[in-house]
């Protein structure tokens, strides 16, 4: 176990000053997610334009440093991507957290990968994995816009 790996500078900084913590005006897709175990909750808003590009993405909610940083980094990376690119990035990130040693997607710049890999520290803390993945699952739900509320506990 290594606290330093979990609470890296970038995580603490994003946790303290989350980017895109607001509500997108004229959003056309959104979803809510919560983790009943700890009370973390997140609401993701998306604005997809006619070319199916993410014109804006934002989130509201409260949670631990890990969950806030994860949502912050996620929204930063997804903005400007097409919905297919976004899906690839999401799969890549969730795959990395689950089992893969690194990120594979060619859409991601090295810099982006470094940022996302900062979240890999949670792999050593099984109880905290959900904190890192909640906003991502919620984003999937928003893109599918199936009206379901994401919950990390079924």
């Amino acid at each position: 176990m290594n606290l330093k790996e979990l609470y890296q500078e970038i995580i603490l900084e994003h946790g303290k000053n989350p980017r895109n913590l607001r509500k997108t005006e004229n959003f056309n897709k959104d979803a809510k997610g919560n983790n009943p175990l700890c009370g973390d909750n997140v609401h993701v808003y998306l604005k997809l334009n006619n070319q199916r590009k993410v014109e804006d993405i934002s989130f509201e909610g409260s949670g631990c440093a890990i969950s806030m940083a994860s949502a912050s980094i996620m929204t930063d990376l997804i903005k400007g991507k097409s919905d297919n690119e976004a899906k690839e990035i999401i799969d890549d990130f969730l795959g990395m957290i689950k089992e893969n040693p690194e990120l594979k997607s060619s859409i991601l710049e090295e810099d982006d990968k470094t940022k996302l890999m900062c979240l890999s520290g949670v792999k050593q803390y099984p109880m905290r994995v959900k904190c890192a993945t909640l906003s991502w699952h919620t984003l999937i739900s928003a893109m599918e816009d199936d009206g379901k509320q994401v919950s990390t506990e079924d």
Partner: protein
Amino acid sequence: MNIDNIKKEFPIFDEKIQNNDLVYLDSANSSQKPKVVIDRINEFYTKEFSNVGRSIHYLAVAATNLYENTRSSVQKYINAKDKNEIVFTKGATEALNLVANTLGQKYLNEGDEILLTELEHHSNYVPWHYLRKSKNIKINFAEINEDGEIPIENIEKKITPKTKVIAINHLSNVTGAILPIKEITELAHAKDIIVVVDGCQGAPHLKLDVQDLGCDFYAISCHKMYGPTGLGILYGKKKWLEELPPYQGGGGMIKEVKKDRITYGDLPNKYEAGTMATAQVIAFDKSIKFLESIGIDNIIKHEKELIEYGQEILKKNNSVKLIGNPKNKGGVISFTIEGVHPHDIATILDEDGVAIRAGHHCCQILHDKLEIPASARASVGVYNTKSDFDQLNESINKCKKIFDLK
């Protein structure tokens, strides 16, 4: 038994937890188990095992006697009038579900009201919520004051002519407030209102005398009382347990089963359908004996000193904000740290072997009221010492350092 070195009765404290000595501050969630209880379970399975109440062979009779013996010990420990007022359940949660369900079946009608408090654990809210759905029953909440207590006036204010049941916590698992159960019961009974007490936190830490409290039902969680998991107790006044219908159906709870009719067994079998948590019940007798050997007065004194010490030390820590300030308080300290989420606190403390709880502790109503999503909670048991709070404080300072707080 001397409480000052009681820790050595608990084998877990001989273990290294991730290379640390264990600082266990999560007893409100579940307590650790003394060796006598662990050994008793082993011994029963090794040398004495049989199911109870069914067969007539030697082992079955002996096991049945042991099982019933725990019932008598519990009766004495909580000073119930009758042995048959003690019903074993799978936990306090099941005990509360049993009460809500059977009162719902027979006693409550559409439009009736149930009064809870904002301090209730989900176990003492969700079962009543079912009646809101199935029987159109209304639920009201008595409010906390700014110290996180429920003064009796706040209960009185919410009683209406339709109030049929008051279901309340004995000791809050978040603020530690001890509710004036006896006074509330007197008030309620004067208006023919049933009083159900969630005694999960009361039973391990307070002197229990259900006849003195006067309540109609009292739910106990054995795993918080230095006993095994999978076991709870419902105390219910005999007249209610006799009058109310059974909760679950199955073997052991019947008198006669015919194709066209079934009659039910007498107390306490009526509420103990199926094979019960036999080994746990039998081992729980050792938990009671363990508590008796220390003496509840000594336990109360010890835990009071710990909590006063813990509060004092945390109050001096300028980033820590304590939740609630009840005058009459049990062994629970909940807190937040400005700028550090409780989940992060718990992870960082865990690295030092300090086990606390973070989250809403199954009290979302209370956390909503306090306008915080979660809190951190340190709770004590007989084995804690002041040095546990010193370590807690030191680890909190480590959190502050990681999060760059002053």
